[in-house]
């Protein structure tokens, strides 16, 4: 059995851990609010972008010659997967959930005999994927330096994807991220961004006859690359809100567990203290009796 001193030390250590997790929870809660605000502020842009794209694709006259970003290369041999994770740990199942979803997809692809390429955004995802899929990872990115999610970062990722697509290095591009539902629930998502599935684009299309200047094709050619960056940006915003939410609930339960542990250890400590006192008393009494 542990000595009194050991127990005392353990109680102290659990208590200080509890303090840390509690502080982390508070920080995550504050950051979550900001991340949620940002996600909401970014929504109008993505929505308008979707509306315009829908209107454009409805208005496009020559579907055969539509831009490749929309219609695809006609093949589905090489899949590019962009896995967006966080740069920091201690956020519950946040990263694991994305990785799990991505791995299931990777498995499906390799069973179908297609080539897989991976871009990881965020260091935690890279750490988890490099063990098994080291050869498939073509690029890793991390935006640890940026304090907040900004569009420039998303644009960097977007540009890289477009460049690689123009070199015909892949046919289908899918992104993986966590969608923020509420503090407790984050849903891992897979979303195909190239070729764009217009049926999955949310938004309202109108029957208005638009005038296009220059023509539809040229606008689409200009717009679709921007849309890639916008989608990535949206995913990054959702991800950051999810990360903080996930961290908050993880740290909340960690704090609670630490509290329970302290209670248990305190009871054990008191018991063994009393046992020691009783033992001493018995020794004194039996010593006095023997005289």
């Amino acid at each position, binding site marked *: 059995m542990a000595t009194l001193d050991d127990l005392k030390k353990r109680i102290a250590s659990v208590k200080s851990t509890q303090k840390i997790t509690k502080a982390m929870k508070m920080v995550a809660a504050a950051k979550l609010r900001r991340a949620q605000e*940002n996600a909401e*502020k*970014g929504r*109008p*842009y*993505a929505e*308008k*972008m979707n*509306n*315009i794209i829908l*209107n*454009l694709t409805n208005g496009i006259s020559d579907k055969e010659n539509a831009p490749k970003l929309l219609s695809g290369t006609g093949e589905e041999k090489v899949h590019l997967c962009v896995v967006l994770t966080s740069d920091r740990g201690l956020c519950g199942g946040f990263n694991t959930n994305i990785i799990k979803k991505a791995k299931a997809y990777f498995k499906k692809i390799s069973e179908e005999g297609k080539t897989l390429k991976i871009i990881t955004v965020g260091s935690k995802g890279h750490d988890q994927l490099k063990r098994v899929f080291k050869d498939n990872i073509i690029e890793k990115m991390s935006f640890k330096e940026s304090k907040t999610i*900004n*569009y420039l970062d*998303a*644009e960097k990722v977007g540009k890289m994807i477009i460049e690689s697509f123009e070199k015909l290095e892949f046919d289908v591009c899918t992104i993986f991220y966590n969608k923020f539902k509420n503090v407790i629930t984050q849903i891992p998502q897979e979303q195909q961004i190239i070729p764009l599935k217009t049926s999955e684009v949310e938004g309202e299309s*109108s029957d*208005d*006859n*638009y*005038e*296009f*200047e*220059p023509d539809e094709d040229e*606008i689409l050619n*200009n*717009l679709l690359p*921007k849309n890639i*960056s*916008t989608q990535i*940006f949206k995913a990054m915003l959702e991800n950051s809100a999810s990360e903080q939410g996930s961290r908050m609930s993880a740290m909340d339960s960690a704090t609670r567990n630490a509290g329970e542990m302290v209670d248990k250890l305190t009871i054990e400590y008191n018991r063994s203290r009393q046992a020691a006192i009783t033992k001493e008393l018995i020794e004194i009494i039996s010593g006095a009796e023997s005289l």
Partner: protein
Amino acid sequence: MSEEFKVEIVNPEQSFLLKEDVTEIIIPAFEGEMGILKDHIPIISFLKPGLIKISSKSGEEDYYVEDGIVEFKNNCLSILTSSIFNIKDVNKDKVNELLKEAEEHSKNSEITDQNKYLVDQKIDILKTIN
């Protein structure tokens, strides 16, 4: 009858500007400057580097944009852009910095004709701001 319409400018990060009382707006559309008044037909176009001039009841405002997409529908003009600032709010250092960047970009020999054209436009505009 009122002559006003709504203008909404959005950044990826946030809503940049919302004005309900715009009487006229001039935008640097890709094929030339375009003035838009109330009851314009629905149009979609995109922007090249230039100045957006907004005239409203409360006065005139100028904004610098580098790119973006414009949609006009039901008397509501939406501009989606990732790079915009009000000319009044910007200091010369920032403009000079952009100018320098653009000039370096323009000297790059691998640049395509179209990009070269856009960058030169940008340089001209920035110079006028200065």
